[in-house]
């Protein structure tokens, strides 16, 4: 039974010693992102993101449904991150928990930060709304799934086009995509996640951890920002405690990094 093998002691020791000298095992700088490549499919709403060797595919689709009874004027957005069995022959519980982490992060980053205008998804209040479904498939896991998945999801949402609707009182006509050009979604801002990993007693830090760094980390922290340098979310779940100076430093580094990521997102989205 092939389980997800933990890194050997030699590997983690080497990693720590290199970090103590300010070097990373893959030759990057401490604050360097791996190469980021965003490609869109021929259908709008399909985006594949490659961050180093991590490869994530996001697919957005829509359907007309009834709204939630307590939110009759809002559309619904559903997120589903799946660690495809392409990542490991037998996906065990540690990998499954990563799936849940990615899904929760996407919900916080995209739904709770009010990035998507759900009121614009309403067709007939109380009866018909659009339900958006964002399926994120993780094709290759080489560390830092959260950042890659967030970029893939927001790019796919911005590239997605839903069918045009004309509402006349209580009746709505949904136009076929061949009769009327499909329209883009209403997205308020573009949140981007920047993840850090900590080692040793929490004093050593890296940006955009690789798989080995992720497996050897003692703490991790994600800053979510948008292009206006506003902090949308801070996520620290478990691990060794961090000082507030470390948190501030992480946020400052993230502010500096978000520009280059945003540039790539703009290129991919304004096609």
């Amino acid at each position, binding site marked *: *039974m*092939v389980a997800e093998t933990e890194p050997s002691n030699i590997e983690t020791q080497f990693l720590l010693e290199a970090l103590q000298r300010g070097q990373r095992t893959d030759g990057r700088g401490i604050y360097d992102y791996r190469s980021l490549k965003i490609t869109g499919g021929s*259908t709008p709403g399909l985006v594949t993101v490659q961050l180093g*060797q991590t490869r994530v*595919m996001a697919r957005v689709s829509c359907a007309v449904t009834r709204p939630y009874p307590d939110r009759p004027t809002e559309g619904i957005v559903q997120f589903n991150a799946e660690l495809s069995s*392409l990542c490991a022959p037998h996906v065990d519980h540690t990998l499954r928990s990563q799936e849940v982490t990615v899904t929760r992060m996407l919900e916080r980053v995209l739904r709770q930060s009010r990035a998507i205008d759900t009121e614009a998804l309403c067709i007939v209040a109380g009866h018909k709304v659009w339900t958006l479904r964002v*399926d994120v498939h993780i*094709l290759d896991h080489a560390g830092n799934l959260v950042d890659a998945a967030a970029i893939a999801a927001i790019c796919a949402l911005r590239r997605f086009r839903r069918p045009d609707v004309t509402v006349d009182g209580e009746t709505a006509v949904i136009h076929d995509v061949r009769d009327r050009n499909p329209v883009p979604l209403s997205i308020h801002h573009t949140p981007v996640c920047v993840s850090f990993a900590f080692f040793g007693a929490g004093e050593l830090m890296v940006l955009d951890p690789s798989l080995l760094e992720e497996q050897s980390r003692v703490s991790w922290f994600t800053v979510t920002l948008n292009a206006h340098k506003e902090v949308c979310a801070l996520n620290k779940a478990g691990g060794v405690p961090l000082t507030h100076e470390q948190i501030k430093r992480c946020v400052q580094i993230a502010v500096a990094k978000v520009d280059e990521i945003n540039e790539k997102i703009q290129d991919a989205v304004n096609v």
Partner: protein
Amino acid sequence: MARPDRRDPTQIRALHCVLGQLNRVDGSAQFSAGDTSVLCGVYGPVDVKLYDEKLDRAHIEVKFRPDIGVPTTKDKWVEDAVRSTFEREILGQLHPRTLVQINVQVCQGDGSVDAAAINATTLALIDAGIPLRAMVAAATCVVRSDHSIIVDPTQEEADSALSTHTFAFSNLQTNSPAYVDSRGEFSIDEYNACYDMCMAAVDRTLAFMRTAVEGKILKETQTAL
């Protein structure tokens, strides 16, 4: 009746493939026919669960994931189709008590997805270096409402068809298909016509696959020098 994309009845869509994109799997292939794009990753031979262990050959497992939503029974059907096709083609006796896991992920579906899955699987198995008896390629034909037959339908063409037929053939030149799936109402003449059309389409697909694999080997040997 003209086709929406102005193709001839016997014309398949433009084929495209990329081999070896993924790093964790042993072999991978992304196969596209027009707007239908399928990614296949293969692990093998790897450790097998005791329950599935076979003493004299490899256990073949297929996982098929759609692009939108969670897997349903339709996807299980494709899993079964791919597994039964490749159980005969993979030389499992060379790797007893191991597992060959075929993972198919649909990136974009625009008709003929099961045929694309079989094609992607062949290429991924070759990329992984898993011994095969032959290369297998598949094609889909549909009989339209005016009883004309077209090959490699898009989703729109398949939805309005009277019957759909998917055939897979190996490159061993025998006159027996490796996989057959026919649905709908059709006559035996229509079935035979679809059979012939698919065989021609499969020949072209196999030639394309061969070129793709040759290109990959050439690139590898050149960079090694």
